[in-house]
């Protein structure tokens, strides 16, 4: 891939605060955060074929952790975000250890169960989480050493761009690493990979923890963005929505989920202005997408670009991680 698309992307993101009005800058921030959320799921779904139905779990845990660290402990914003990621990762180790013992549908059900458990805790533990009301008025706590730079609208956007960009680069490095390649081997043929010497369970656990930590970062950024958290963040519909974003955008691509998140948010925003049954229309679009372009928006785009330049490669899209 040439450098041009990267430079164009960075330039567009840098110009956004100048070009966009406040509301649209906020929307772009949200797209980036949800894109990160979807990309984190893609690490599991696309590279390890681990279908999580409970990705709202780490997202909500990260959101509550960041909100509580700022609102109750008074941590400065960047420290609260880092703390939230650490908490999500630590929680993901035992949960992942249990979930990764199972495969396929059992894995999906276990992840769903843990997310529902987190929802129940957030709903019932009123003194800490505010119960069904949630926590409103979460402050973006400024800190010493110029950390207050990030508390304004543009500053928060810049922080989001920096963190989401770093997460994307980290995920790309992981996918290209020996561990990432081994994970693809396990996805393609587990018995074969194990006979070669790769430990499938350890690889899945590693992917699970990394994926959850990045989802925790997305949740923490979301909490800092809307300054409100509630148990709704942990609802199973959130897990469903993020799956739709990844599949719409294209699994196993890391970039695709950002497109999927943008499309999802735009559809939700535009169609809900027209009709209350926007979910019905979204569902229809989703069905058509899966049938017409199973490789998602990113895969379709890549295929069109490739087709314009040279004949299709022999190996399918997943071949080169």
């Amino acid at each position, binding site marked *: 891939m040439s450098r041009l698309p990267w430079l164009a992307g960075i330039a567009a993101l840098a110009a956004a605060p100048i070009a966009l009005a406040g509301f649209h800058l906020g929307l772009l921030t949200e797209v980036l955060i949800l894109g990160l959320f979807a990309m984190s799921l893609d690490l599991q779904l696309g590279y390890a074929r681990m279908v999580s139905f409970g990705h709202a779990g780490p997202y909500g845990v990260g959101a509550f952790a960041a909100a509580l660290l700022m609102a109750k402990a008074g941590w400065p914003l960047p420290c609260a975000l880092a703390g939230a990621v650490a908490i999500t990762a630590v929680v993901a180790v035992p949960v992942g250890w249990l979930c990764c013992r199972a495969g396929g549908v059992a894995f999906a059900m276990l992840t769903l169960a843990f997310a529902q458990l987190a929802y129940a805790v957030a709903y019932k533990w009123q003194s800490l989480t505010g119960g069904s009301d949630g926590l409103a008025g979460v402050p973006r706590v400024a800190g010493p050493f110029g950390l207050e730079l990030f508390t304004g609208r543009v500053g928060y956007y810049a922080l989001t761009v920096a963190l989401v960009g770093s997460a994307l680069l980290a995920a790309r490095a*992981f996918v290209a690493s*020996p*561990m990432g390649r*081994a994970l693809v081997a396990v996805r393609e043929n587990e018995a*074969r990979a194990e*006979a*070669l010497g790769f430990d499938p369970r350890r690889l899945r656990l590693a992917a699970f923890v990394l994926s959850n930590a990045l989802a925790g970062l997305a949740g923490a950024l979301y909490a800092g963005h809307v300054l409100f958290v509630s148990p709704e963040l942990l609802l199973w519909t959130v897990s469903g929505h993020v799956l739709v974003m990844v599949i719409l955008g294209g699994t196993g691509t890391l970039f695709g989920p950002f497109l999927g998140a943008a499309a999802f948010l735009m559809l939700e925003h535009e169609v809900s202005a027209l009709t209350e049954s926007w979910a019905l229309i979204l569902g229809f679009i989703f069905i058509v997408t899966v049938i017409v372009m199973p490789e998602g928006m990113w895969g379709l785009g890549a295929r069109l670009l490739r087709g314009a330049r040279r004949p299709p490669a022999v*190996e399918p899209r997943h071949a080169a991680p």
Partner: protein
Amino acid sequence: MPLLECTGLSRAWGAVRAVDGVDIAVEAGEVRAVIGPNGAGKTTLFNLITGAVPKTAGRVVFRGEDVSRLPPHAVARRGIARTFQVTALFPRLTALENVRLGAQAVRPDAMRPLPVGAAAAATTEAARAALARVGLAGLADVAAGVLSHGDQRLLEVAMALVQRPALLILDEPTQGMSVEETQHTVALLGRVLAAEGTAVLLVEHDLQVVFALARRITVLHRGRRIAEGTPAEVRADAAVRDAYLGNLD
């Protein structure tokens, strides 16, 4: 001390004793064949040695270490590479990446979560060399799943060879191959094995292949070892003739 020493290996599924108290030892550098009629327990024996199937009873000692209770990936990292009876590859990855993963899997940094440029270069180089040794150098960038059946079998051999194992377990390497492909493969295996000095445990239906490659043969029948010896001794064995209904030539 033998390289591999198995004692009393057993596996029962309910009342079916697929492998029943089998002893087998392989010396370093030895090429040993395991033969027997269909259902004799040859593939199950291999799965017991590599840890792919849990043992009902028995012990496997490899290079002086008890590996009986280790999972397959740990056994592989100790120096036992294998091919499968039913071709097992990463069909959507290129032939080169299939072999490269084999080279990666036995390195100390096999599962490092950060990119290692040196490791990638070293494994790629080793993979290209292994592909060339089995005659697949020209197909390096083709997806493994679209290779011909014969080339897929050879690719599996390359994935095992690239690991430089102390013991190579080949489960019917010429299964499903044409006569020409079989001859080519036998010649190739003979050359490579002589050059590497790798010990081999080989299951094969084609007795011509067995007699061409192996100096010693173990015969299984209904899960039990009924004979062991040189090809001539095995041919002359009355119990073996019985099991094969006299059809040894």
